[in-house]
């Protein structure tokens, strides 16, 4: 029986559930010292002085380090490991305290006196674009679309118009046809402004890392990083150490979602080298919110038009991303989604990357997509209401199909947007009658998907089990799917396969676990490695059994001659023969490689049912369904799990998650008391419907699945709430008071 497609428990799941998994903070390292950071309390200031003598005299404190103590770094101000001269956001590290215990490090950090001279801050992206605004970044950084591509976003063009507003680092744009004329000729138009709050990954495990300097100038880094090789290469470049001298040991990831590629490691490495001691830093939850980069807020002014029959005519959009004290890179992604989801004859899109005095932003699961699709799918819902057309029908009439123009002016490959919409139209949550105060909302979303050349290794252990060696950590349960692929390729049950994620010194090269690419990029390499290992094993058996390899099969831990079950050799015996002292057979040591050539874009449609309380503005989700094209579900419950988590995250953006800053750039939601992660009682059962339109290039037809479910949830809920209350939601999270108190 084939493992692929058969529901299989996560290989690493049990250990996580019973608390046996050893995370980075659990790791004992001899001679370890502890680091605590002192973060800037102001959002924009010049550093007058940092007084460290009191901290140095705290019992247990070994060293107190400020920027001047470290070698100069060639990076922008906000990205300095410790702030030099200026701070650009509240939460920026200004000093590090090293001590013999975590508690002493905290005591020391509390005793560091940072004297700041406050300078004007701007915390609002719209205000930051005014000529009167303070300039946030010293040097106008250019947005780096390389970041976008790592997460598999299909970025549009970030072009270079002559004049940019203040604090804008890049402008994204897309134009097709004459949008002005097309809009004017439209029978119906919707024009509105939508805003999406900044949110945070809020992974259960805070950011943590341990770095040990090694004799000979190398480093060992234990980190729950999503990308060990990316982290290694980044450190090598920053520290000017050859990459092979840096060993990144990938630790179990206690939640990544784009937020755990690198953050602390550069600074820790500098500190560890300076003191020649192994160091560990664990952020507190408050520090995670203040210092670890979350997802940017965005604001979209959108106008869309249609003929009376619902055929779309034009889209015009002006949008901006609030990137905090960073240049940002989400604009091109938004532009591509806006232009490429429906068959617009004409589009005119301009998007700004704006910097403000807030914590820098970075990737969060499907970066840019939840923001963009909230705006786009809300506008589509408003249009459907104006046209008095069923919202799924409106989308079906205009959804892109194979051969249509995508967001970058190329052609869509075979995508399954239509199939998802058809499934939604017939879903019982959509068709069942509505109760009092109840309404149903739908929204679509998509994701391009990343791919990175990857390799895998395979060997057979003395007990006959199979080890697959990879270099990509498991952030999603993907290793179970990879084990299933290997099991089928080798001819084993999945119980006999394990996945080992090795440190960068020995592991085969692997993709960053991001961009919905792990299975997509690694699946082929694992498959090839397992096939090759089988070939090598059978080659040894050939001599033992005096039969041609094509006449051999693997059954019950043995290699046997097909049709002659009594002629067999135990696989354990073959391992012994090929590993023993004075042996004459070469050991099974296979490798596989893959480089998937093109992306397999994924579409999804979510259905949300809500019941609203007309007196308080409260609403409850009474039902939820997520329909998604997954290409092929390697491990169906794992796909469902990914969808459940993604739904919770995208619905969380509607229910209450938000990073709120005051006008001075102070974070007001810096703890889990005020930052509202959705609770389990707020979420209904989620019905996952997998559409399987196989990818022509993905392993066994698989497409990426991790990111799409995090995309349309907020829009689906907002559309349902808007329909239930008659008050159109245009801002996330949903302000309950607006639903009952007219503004």
């Amino acid at each position: 029986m084939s493992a692929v497609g058969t529901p299989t428990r996560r290989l690493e799941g049990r250990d996580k559930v019973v608390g046996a998994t050893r995370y980075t903070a659990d790791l004992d390292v001899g001679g370890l010292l502890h680091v605590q950071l002192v973060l800037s309390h102001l959002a924009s200031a010049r550093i007058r002085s940092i007084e460290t003598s009191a901290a140095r005299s705290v019992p247990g404190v070994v060293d107190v380090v400020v920027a001047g103590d470290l070698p100069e770094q060639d990076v922008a101000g906000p990205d300095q490991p410790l702030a030099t001269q200026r701070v650009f956001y509240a939460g920026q590290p200004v000093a590090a305290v090293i001590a013999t215990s975590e508690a002493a490090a905290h005591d020391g950090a509390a005793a560091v006196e940072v004297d700041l001279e406050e300078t004007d801050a701007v915390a609002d992206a719209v205000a930051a674009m005014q000529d009167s605004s303070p300039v946030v970044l010293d040097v106008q950084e250019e947005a780096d679309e390389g970041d976008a591509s790592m997460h598999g976003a299909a970025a549009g063009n970030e072009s270079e118009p002559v004049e940019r507003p203040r604090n804008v680092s890049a402008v994204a744009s897309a134009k097709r046809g004459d949008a002005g004329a097309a809009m004017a000729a439209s029978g119906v138009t919707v024009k509105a402004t939508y805003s999406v709050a900044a949110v945070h990954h809020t992974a259960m495990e805070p950011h943590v890392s341990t770095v040990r300097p090694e004799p000979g100038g190398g480093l060992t880094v234990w980190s729950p990083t999503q990308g060990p090789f990316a982290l290694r290469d980044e450190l090598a470049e920053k520290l000017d150490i050859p990459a092979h001298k840096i060993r990144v040991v990938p630790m179990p990831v206690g939640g990544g979602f784009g937020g755990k590629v690198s953050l602390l490691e550069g600074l820790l490495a500098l500190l560890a080298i300076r003191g020649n001691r192994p160091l560990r830093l664990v952020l507190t939850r408050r520090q995670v919110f203040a210092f670890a980069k979350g997802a940017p807020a965005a604001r979209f002014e959108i106008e869309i038009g249609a003929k009376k029959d619902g055929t779309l005519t034009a889209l015009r959009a002006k949008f901006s991303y609030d990137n905090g004290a960073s240049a940002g890179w989400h604009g091109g992604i938004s532009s591509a989604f806006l232009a490429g989801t429906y068959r617009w004859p004409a589009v005119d899109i301009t998007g700004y990357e704006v910097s403000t005095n807030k914590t820098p932003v970075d990737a969060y699961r499907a970066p840019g997509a939840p923001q963009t699709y909230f705006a786009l799918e809300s506008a589509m819902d408003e249009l459907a209401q104006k046209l008095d057309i069923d919202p799924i029908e409106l989308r079906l009439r205009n959804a892109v199909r194979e051969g249509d123009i995508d967001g970058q002016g190329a052609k869509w490959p075979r995508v399954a947007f239509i199939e998802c919409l058809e499934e939604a139209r017939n879903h019982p949550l959509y068709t069942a009658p509505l109760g009092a105060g109840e309404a149903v909302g739908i929204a679509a979303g998509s994701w391009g998907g990343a791919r990175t050349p990857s390799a895998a290794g395979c060997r057979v252990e003395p007990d006959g089990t199979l080890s697959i060696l990879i270099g990509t950590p498991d952030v999603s349960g993907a290793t179970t799917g990879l084990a299933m692929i290997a099991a089928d390729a080798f001819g084993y049950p999945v119980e006999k396969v394990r996945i080992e994620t090795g440190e960068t010194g020995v592991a085969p090269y692997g993709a960053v676990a991001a961009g919905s690419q792990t299975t997509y990029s690694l699946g082929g390499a694992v498959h090839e490695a397992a096939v090759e290992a089988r070939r090598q094993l059978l080659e040894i058996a050939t001599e033992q059994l005096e039969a041609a390899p094509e006449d051999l099969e693997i059954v019950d831990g043995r290699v046997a001659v097909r049709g002659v079950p009594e002629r067999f050799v135990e696989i354990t015996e073959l391992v012994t023969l090929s590993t023993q002292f004075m042996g004459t057979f070469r050991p099974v040591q296979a490798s596989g490689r893959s480089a998937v050539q093109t992306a397999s874009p994924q579409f999804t449609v979510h259905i949300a049912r809500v019941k609203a309380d007309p007196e308080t503005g409260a609403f409850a989700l009474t039902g939820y369904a997520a329909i998604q094209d997954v290409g092929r579900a390697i491990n169906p419950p794992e796909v469902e799990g990914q969808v459940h988590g993604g739904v919770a995250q995208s619905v969380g953006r509607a229910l209450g998650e938000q990073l709120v800053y005051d006008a001075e750039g102070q974070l007001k939601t810096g703890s889990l008391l005020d930052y509202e992660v959705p609770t389990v009682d707020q979420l209904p059962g989620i019905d996952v419907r997998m559409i399987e339109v196989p990818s022509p290039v993905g392993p066994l037809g698989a497409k990426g699945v991790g990111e799409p479910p995090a995309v349309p949830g907020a829009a689906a809920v907002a559309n349902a709430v808007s329909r239930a209350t008659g008050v159109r939601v245009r801002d996330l999270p949903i302000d309950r008071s607006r639903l009952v108190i007219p503004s």
Partner: protein
Amino acid sequence: MKPAPFDYDDPRSVDEAIGLLARYGDECKVLAGGQSLVPLMNFRLARPGRLVDINGIESLGQVKVENGRLLLGAMVRHAQVERSNDIAARWPLLHDAIVWVGHSQIRNRGTVGGSVAHADPAAELPCALAALDAKFHVLSRRGPRVLRWDQIFVSEFTTSLAPDELLTAIEVPPQDPSTGVAFVEFARRHGDFALGGAAVSITLARNGTCSDVAVALLSAGPRPVRAEEAERRLKGGQVDEAAIKQASAAAVQGLHPTSDLHGSREYRVKLLQVMTERALTKAVHLATRRAA
């Protein structure tokens, strides 16, 4: 998440505890369930030099009924109140209020004395105790005091307890078995601090008129609020839908709950009115059944 260094005492008797309080005064803090104090210390928003941990004082952990009055020792955990059948039957408002407190982990550790001494205007227990006209037993080396709710609760996170005083017990008067009660609140997520809520206790005469009523509001001001105007309007009259609506509107007259991130003043007032209406409706429904 490490608190600043502090000294620690672990007294075994009330006498020992008040001795320590007398000696160290405002240098020290009483540690009860720690569900409010310890987070504040871990955030280093509170840095007491010394903790007097009263978890080891057994006598403070008892639930007693004397002359029909309920006596809750200060160290009685929220969960003990929640699980007591006797309290659910005879002081149901306490039971109805306590289940709104945080999550079960919090209720397992958190204490009734801690809830009172912490004096959070969004805390359910002080609000319910205000509706029940509870009394608060306080002890120090200087002697005992017994305070009414409007004497102990002063303002946000502020009571009239002196630094050397220990809250030892909460006394709740007996309740007429025909009384109908309700505790309702509005919070963003279950376990979050309420944006508004109401505790109602109402007794109806045989002819259906209101013979006694208490309405206390949660998160309505710097301390629990008794809606006296609403109570006055309800007393002696028929409690129909119109009367409930009028009383609820009266209850929120002149209230100034503070606007914050989670709700504007206007929204909070609206919620308080709706919660009062719902609590009254529910309590009247129960009282009608009991009176019949």
